[in-house]
């Protein structure tokens, strides 16, 4: 297991750069360096941002299970950064849609958010991400105490809304959204199973002292 110092000095900065890679590539391609944005650049930017938003959120959701499966508690130190990058990409996806796709054409934007279920769903997920991003600081964690964890369980419905949003906008080829759904399903099912198992254990052996922080995630 890497030391806290190693995580802070090397792993986190490397992860930060890795998470920025999709946006760096888009920027380079915008100037035709190492590639192009293709025939429909707006669509390319919007899709890339949305895809990475969803991927980052799913990776964030995978941190706790991975920690348990591989007995790597240090992974938790990376979770906030991953979650914030998820928010960043989802926000950029939204802003690309708002500015480049819709050209800030408000009548169209408001109608779409209200009338198009897949846009409504995506917008709802974005709104739900805002309180999570705002309360991601150490100070807010301390201030909210136990409620912080409850609040941040919002990531479960957010991930599902994200997959649904993607699923609903594809025309016929559902293979990729199906893959994301399967991963999210596994990650959520694992949490349910863990909770069920620990409560079953508690019922079976009520005399045994509970381990602190058992199955609360």
């Amino acid at each position, binding site marked *: 297991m890497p030391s806290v110092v190693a995580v802070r000095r090397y792993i986190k900065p490397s992860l930060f750069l890795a998470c920025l890679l999709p946006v760096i590539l888009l920027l380079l391609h*915008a100037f035709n360096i190492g590639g192009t944005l293709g025939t429909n650049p707006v669509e390319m930017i919007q899709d890339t941002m949305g895809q990475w938003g969803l991927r980052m959120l799913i990776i964030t959701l995978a941190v706790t299970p991975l920690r348990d499966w591989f007995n790597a508690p240090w992974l938790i130190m990376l979770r906030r950064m991953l979650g914030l990058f998820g928010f960043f990409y989802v926000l950029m996806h939204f802003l690309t849609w708002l500015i480049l796709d819709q050209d800030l054409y408000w009548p169209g934007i408001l109608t779409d958010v209200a009338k198009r279920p897949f846009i409504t769903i995506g917008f709802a997920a974005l709104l739900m991400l805002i309180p999570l991003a705002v309360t991601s600081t150490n100070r807010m964690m301390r201030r909210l105490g136990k409620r912080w964890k409850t609040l941040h369980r919002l990531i479960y419905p957010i991930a599902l809304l994200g997959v649904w949003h993607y699923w609903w906008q594809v025309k016929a*080829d559902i293979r990729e959204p199906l893959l994301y759904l399967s991963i999210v399903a596994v990650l959520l099912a694992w949490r349910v199973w863990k909770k069920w198992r620990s409560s079953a254990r508690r019922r079976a052996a009520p005399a045994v002292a509970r381990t602190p922080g058992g199955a609360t995630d």
Partner: protein
Amino acid sequence: MLIRRPQPGDCAGIQPSEITDEQVYLDRRNLLRAALAMGVAGLGTAWPAGAVSGGAPLNAKRNPAFHVSDPPNSYDDITTYNNYYEFGTDKSSPAANSDRFKPTPWTVTVSGAAERTGKFALEDLLKPHALEERVYRMRCVEAWSLVIPWVGVPLGEVLKTFKPTANAKYVAFKTVLRPSEMPGQTVNVLQWPYVEGLRIDEAMNPLALLAVGLYGKTLPNQNGAPLRLVTPWKYGFKGIKSIVEIHFTEKQPPTSWNISAPDEYGFYANVNPHVDHPRWSQARERKIGSGLFASKVPTLMFNGYEQEVAGLYRGMDLAKNF
């Protein structure tokens, strides 16, 4: 793409189709050799019998009656941004995955309510007609659009040669089924082979085109080689590609996207800014090639071909018959 580089469509004076493609120019000796090998058989007809893949020059006359004010998209735009699920579902898949497809030789089977039916070689189908170039708008159901200089023959003129009977109320088309050459057909995202259809009066409308080329050359595989339908007043998915069957029928034929999602894609699929797709608006469209910061433009009724086709649908509820 932030800085728009000069593209073929930009030059005001020279038509892009008048410029010889660099590859064709470099390949001129091979072309001459191929022409010689074919002997005189190839002379005199517009369709090069020996053409093996997209990009062989065609002898087509521009039809000035079919023209749009916007400049055509670049050859690159038209041939790299395609929906042709037989070669994969990404826009870039058809260009990337279609090189194994063999569009020659090509036979079309004609059947159903017509006097002259049977199998026809593509050359024979085209022989009686002069190829013409027409610049059409193309509006995809996904709310983007292109301007394409097609080469082809009016569909109605070809259909008339089969002498459809009074029972021919509709005409159905079928795409070739070749999973070994079309990797997308091994995935069940749609029912294969792709099928489409038109009402016979729609098919006979002078706008309907059977295209064999674009930019003065035979169709590249990713654009539906060697023979495809172009109905510019309808969403792009009506333009069935690599056609191997034409069937005249009394009943409205099934169509692929309608089978896949009947509440989203109708039989008519006329471009209509007032009837939205259930999941997105059809009021505006992105013009491909207009750059990163260009606004979407309003979509026109029947994609701007109202004058030519509105009569076909008089008295019909277009929200119901979408």
